[in-house]
């Protein structure tokens, strides 16, 4: 992946400036990470962070102290946006980032403890941990992209997340870059002192029909929205995405040219340009740098498998599926759908019924994954033609010619990646 080479190296000048206790904690974390890697339990970054945080609970704050920290949070798009912002800010100085999506305090600590002479720390944060991480890292900027239903069998209510953001960020010194088209994000950000509003769009609207402020019914004419009861309404945006251009606060349109597909990534780039501008990086420079980003943690990767081209797409929740359907190639492109319901996915598959699978009409559709029968009933009711298969290899063998789009939820996506890696 381009840009990986400029990630902060493991050894840097940072350690010398850390107090002794923090230094021991960083070292212990590295040892634990190395043991975890040797034991074959993944990259080890999270366990390293956990050990380090236990030895020094203030470690995250200490590691962040010398960085210009940018936090990125959302239901969807936070890994990609973190990557885009990191690329843009490299125009102004070295960046350390949790580029692989380990987005809870332990993973963030591990990423920052990678140590460096970095100027910027660009950090993806899980929605539930944003307030705490913002308190610890004293960010200069916080990007808030969207909030929607996700893993409801274990996650907090979507509106409660917005409320927690609002309470946790009320006294932040950071410039908050927030999506004015998402009423929940707007509610969360509107108590902050310094907000840059970005009209970044919102395709999925089903979680924002009742006013987050008063519960009134939201009116949504065209792109606008407002509450008829209390007057809470869409703020005037400073930046605006329009087609494949982003308008800056002076009204100048800048073309967005990405290798990443889809409207959602144009929105992510628009927000990233607004973040970069906070640090003096001009839109043209920022957007040009974002063009180098291709696959992010395997997402959007086009791989060769069994002699066929397969594009791997991750969609974890209804809003994500909606954005994904809008970017796939049209019929008769074959589409593989894979859905699991392991703990990391959420064990309730009811959300499948919030996704408009009707939009796949005309595509040859192949259904797989642990919960392929739930999907089969969903597609039957949608009136689609589909075939249920046991493996990616079987789906690829049966698929008519052309590049194949493979859309999967979280653990199903990891399984697809392993399958194509052989």
């Amino acid at each position, binding site marked *: 992946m381009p840009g990986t080479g400029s990630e902060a190296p493991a050894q840097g000048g940072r350690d010398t400036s850390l107090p002794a206790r923090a230094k021991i904690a960083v070292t212990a974390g590295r040892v634990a990470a190395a043991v975890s890697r040797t034991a074959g339990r993944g990259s080890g970054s999270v366990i390293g962070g956990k050990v380090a945080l236990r030895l020094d609970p203030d470690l995250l704050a200490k590691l962040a102290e010398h960085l210009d920290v940018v936090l990125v949070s959302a239901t969807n798009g936070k890994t990609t946006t973190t990557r885009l912002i990191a690329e843009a800010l490299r125009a102004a100085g070295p960046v350390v980032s949790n580029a692989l999506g380990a987005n809870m305090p332990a993973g963030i600590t591990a990423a920052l403890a990678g140590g460096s002479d970095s100027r910027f720390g660009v950090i993806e944060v899980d929605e539930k941990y944003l307030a705490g991480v913002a308190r610890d890292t004293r960010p200069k900027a916080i990007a808030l992209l969207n909030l929607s*239903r996700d893993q*409801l*069998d*274990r996650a907090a*209510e*979507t*509106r*409660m997340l917005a409320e927690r953001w609002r309470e946790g960020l009320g006294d932040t010194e950071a410039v908050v870059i927030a999506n004015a088209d998402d009423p929940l994000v707007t509610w969360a950000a509107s108590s902050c002192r310094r907000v840059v509003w970005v009209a970044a769009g919102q395709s999925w609207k*089903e979680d924002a*029909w*009742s006013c987050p402020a008063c*519960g009134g*019914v939201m009116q949504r004419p065209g792109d606008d929205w407002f509450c*008829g009861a209390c007057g809470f309404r869409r703020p005037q945006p400073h930046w605006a995405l329009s087609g494949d251009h982003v308008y800056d606060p002076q009204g100048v349109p800048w073309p967005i040219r990405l290798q990443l597909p889809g409207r959602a990534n144009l929105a992510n780039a628009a927000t990233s340009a607004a973040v970069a501008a906070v640090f003096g990086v001009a839109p043209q420079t920022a957007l040009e740098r974002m063009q180098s980003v291709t696959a992010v943690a395997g997402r959007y990767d086009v791989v060769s498998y069994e002699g066929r081209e397969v594009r791997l797409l991750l969609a974890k929740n209804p809003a994500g599926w909606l954005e994904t359907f809008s970017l796939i190639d049209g019929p008769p492109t074959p589409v593989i759908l894979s859905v699991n319901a392991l703990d990391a996915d959420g*064990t*309730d*598959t*009811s*959300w*499948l*019924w*919030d996704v408009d699978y009707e939009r796949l009409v005309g595509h040859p559709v192949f259904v797989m994954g642990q919960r392929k*029968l*739930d999907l*089969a*009933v*969903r597609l*039957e*009711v*949608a*009136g689609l033609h589909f075939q249920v298969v046991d493996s990616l290899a079987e789906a690829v063998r049966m698929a008519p010619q052309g590049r194949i789009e493979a859309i999967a939820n979280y653990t199903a996506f990891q399984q697809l990646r392993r399958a194509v890696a052989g």
Partner: protein
Amino acid sequence: MSDSSLRLVWVYPDLLSTYGDRGNVLVVERRARQRGLDVTRIDVRSDQAVPTSGDIYLIGGGEDRPQRLAAERLRMDSGLPRAVENGAIVFSVCAGYQILGHEFVNDLGQREAGLGLLDVHSTRGEGARNVGDILAEVDPRLGLPPLTGFENHQGITHLGPGVAPLASVQVGGGNGTGDGTEGAWRDTVFGTYLHGPVMARNPAMADLLIKLALDVNALPPVDSAWYDALRSERIAAAREQQSA
């Protein structure tokens, strides 16, 4: 109603549609159309009046605050009770089930009045949420195969003498009263804690609502092979969950 048409009303999708409740509407609609019925689907937002002339009303689950808002607005709007007086069929899930009762505990921890269409009242459980697959035997008078679904609630629903349990739990929590009951029903009004969505897991329940609406004893058969496969898998999963 005429024999060939069905008015299907979805109550408050803006507030009570959090757990795939749209699926219940889609399954009933699909299975009615497969029987050649002319289905009119009416989605009623919470700032609109609930029509009184529907045949089947579906009310879904929701989070705590939307549940309170829905109860407030449904109490102000007398459409649903009048529809029931007219003989309409009402099927409710989770938060919607609680709203049909006499009262429930709202997001502020206060007792909130429901519509009293079912003789039940709901309180909030002290222990862990009931989360997981559920399997239950339906009241034999309804002549349905076992119910399979997914439950995710902390509520406890106490049944009064004016209702019968919809089902008796084999695996899972159900009404949470410790007596093994799940859901409640009386005449044409039904309530359950089952998601999944319940109609996708139990198409016979969807067919029952259609039969009640048409006042017929049987419907032409439709291909239910995928539903049957899903049911077998989930029933086995529930039994495994129990033995685990």
